[in-house]
């Protein structure tokens, strides 16, 4: 792993962008030089911005025939040396799942932005939802890990996209930016710093690309064309990439490593933010756009003297088990509002010893602060 500082592509200062534009700008700032995608609402502005900006940034923009081709071409480009991404929404994210598992097993760093809409099925294409978190975690077959972010503002669409690229390279893992329609189409000010810090995948000539790991469990990653005679396969493989499809030990070792390299690094990956939790008896746990409504409700109720606070999850996967366990010891109850039927609440229930109350809304609209305030009042 090496770290460099580069000048930001946008001029430093304040910009007024939509969330989707901010994802594209964050990606370019992070050194993304291969983008492939297929149009889908509400994510298409990411692709359009990438196409528009290719001239200034350089690199490749490819509009592919479908989402499967998009993510597969992203993986190909990453092995050719690129930092690369694709963006989509629910139906396209579903199509990509086989390749997400391939990327996890081949330890291919890449970023997928899933700007979530109301599902299942074609659902409500232009309306907001947050129903893809379990798919993000378990969408492909077999046991693997991903890292996922849940931005709540346009600023975070920019910042967390940069972090997504860095973490992908640091851990050689697919990283998911789980935006929601509401933040993808929101316009806000974004502060762009003059410099961006980039973390690069480690290179070590001659090292085994699937086995020569340090204590962090992450092997160095060469690219095609460097004379390494790479053997990359999505079948079970040994440290040098030879297929070992009937060896129980090789399989166990590989699957354990790709899981543990992420789980053991939780303290360097998980991001949470505490708001007004010092004296709280009730905590709201929220993420993404819902956390904005939750914070608004919490602040208003505190003015009325209610002892309520918010823990915001900036990452959903790997799950903030320890933080939630500690929170569960400090408060009497946890309320989990979310734009799905309790996907993250289930994880909170697993981690916290206190009472956990799920509050799901799946009507294609953001959860209004009044509805969260009403739930809090009922519980306090």
């Amino acid at each position, binding site marked *: 792993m090496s770290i460099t500082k580069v000048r930001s592509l946008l001029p430093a200062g304040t910009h007024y962008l939509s969330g989707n534009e901010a994802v594209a700008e964050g990606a370019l700032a992070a050194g993304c030089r*291969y983008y492939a995608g297929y149009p889908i609402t509400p994510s298409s502005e990411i692709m359009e911005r990438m196409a528009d900006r290719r001239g200034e940034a350089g690199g490749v923009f*490819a509009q592919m025939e479908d989402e499967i081709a998009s993510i597969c*071409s992203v993986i190909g480009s990453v*092995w*050719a040396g690129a930092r690369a991404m694709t963006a989509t929404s629910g139906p396209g994210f579903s199509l990509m799942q086989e*390749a997400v598992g391939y990327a996890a097993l081949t330890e291919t760093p890449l970023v997928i932005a899933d700007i979530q809409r109301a599902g299942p099925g074609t659902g409500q294409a232009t309306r907001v939802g947050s129903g893809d978190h379990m798919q993000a975690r378990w969408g492909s077959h077999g046991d693997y890990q991903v890292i996922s972010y849940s931005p709540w503002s346009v600023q975070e669409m920019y910042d967390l996209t940069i972090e997504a690229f860095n973490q992908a390279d640091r851990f050689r893992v697919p990283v998911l930016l789980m935006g929601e329609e509401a933040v993808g189409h929101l316009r806000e000010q974004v502060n762009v710093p003059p410099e961006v810090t980039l973390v690069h995948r480690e290179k070590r000539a001659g090292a085994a690309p699937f086995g020569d790991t340090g204590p962090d469990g992450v092997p160095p990653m060469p690219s*095609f064309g460097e004379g390494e005679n*790479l053997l990359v396969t999505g079948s079970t493989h040994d440290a040098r990439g030879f*297929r070992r499809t009937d060896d129980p030990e090789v399989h166990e070792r590989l699957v354990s490593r790709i899981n543990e390299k992420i789980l053991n690094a939780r303290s360097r990956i998980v991001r949470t933010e505490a708001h007004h939790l010092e004296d709280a008896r009730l905590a709201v746990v929220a993420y993404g756009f819902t956390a904005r409504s939750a914070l608004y409700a919490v602040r208003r109720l505190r003015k009325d003297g209610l002892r309520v606070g918010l823990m915001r999850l900036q990452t959903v996967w790997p799950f903030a088990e320890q933080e939630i366990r500690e929170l569960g010891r400090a408060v009497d109850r946890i309320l989990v509002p979310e734009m799905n039927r309790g996907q993250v609440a289930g994880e909170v229930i697993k981690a916290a010893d206190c009472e956990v109350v799920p509050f799901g809304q799946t009507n294609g609209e953001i959860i209004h602060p009044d509805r969260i305030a009403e739930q809090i009042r009922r519980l306090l």
Partner: protein
Amino acid sequence: MARDLEARLRTGVQATPFCPGCGHGILMNLILRALDASGIPMEEMLFVSGIGCAAWIPSPHFKGDTLHTLHGRAIPFATGAKLFNPALRTLVISGDGDLASIGGNHLIHAARRNTDLTVICANNRIYGMTGGQAAPTSPRGTRTATTNRGNPHRPFDLCKLVLAAGAAYVARYAVTQPLALMEGIRRALEREGFSFLEVLSPCPTQFGRRNRFESPAEMLQSLMERCVTREEAGRMGDEELAERIVTGEFT
């Protein structure tokens, strides 16, 4: 010459996994000979394959960069690598089920975009690896694991399909035409843009035993009898042509 080719094989890899009589080994040999004849060093090559017996031709045998991908997806993986690093001479090698069924959409779109890739489709006209089910290339009447009374559907003419989609180079040969096939591979590799080579390769294990071929040799014999050049085909009537496979370049 044969020993010269050993430098193009990955150290430590021994026997191929192919069944006795499988045509994929002949194709593997001819790909290496064509690379040798063209003087292309393995360091410049990227070999991309999907899933199936044919996808094992380059991986792990070839001593170059190899990318063994998902079933049907070799072309998009190759597209990403090639677009990002155009210096990689990118050769896709996969089966007919892989490239023409599950991956059929990628095949025609890569041809339409004229992406600078060479694609070799090892066509055994059946799903070899999964146990001999019908492929979109199985001739009408073929007995397979899923059509035990004979395949009711027409097969794709892959060359016509890819040609119509806009490929820069399209040709078909059988492994029973080694010299012409090797020359075809060489020309496909040297042509800029999307080159497609369909290679007929017998599968005695899955196709032969269900369709009354007594031995691998009989399958090869039948392939030799049925393959005709475009010139020979031009002199034949429809009835005579019905049982033939027209080989040669179509661009």
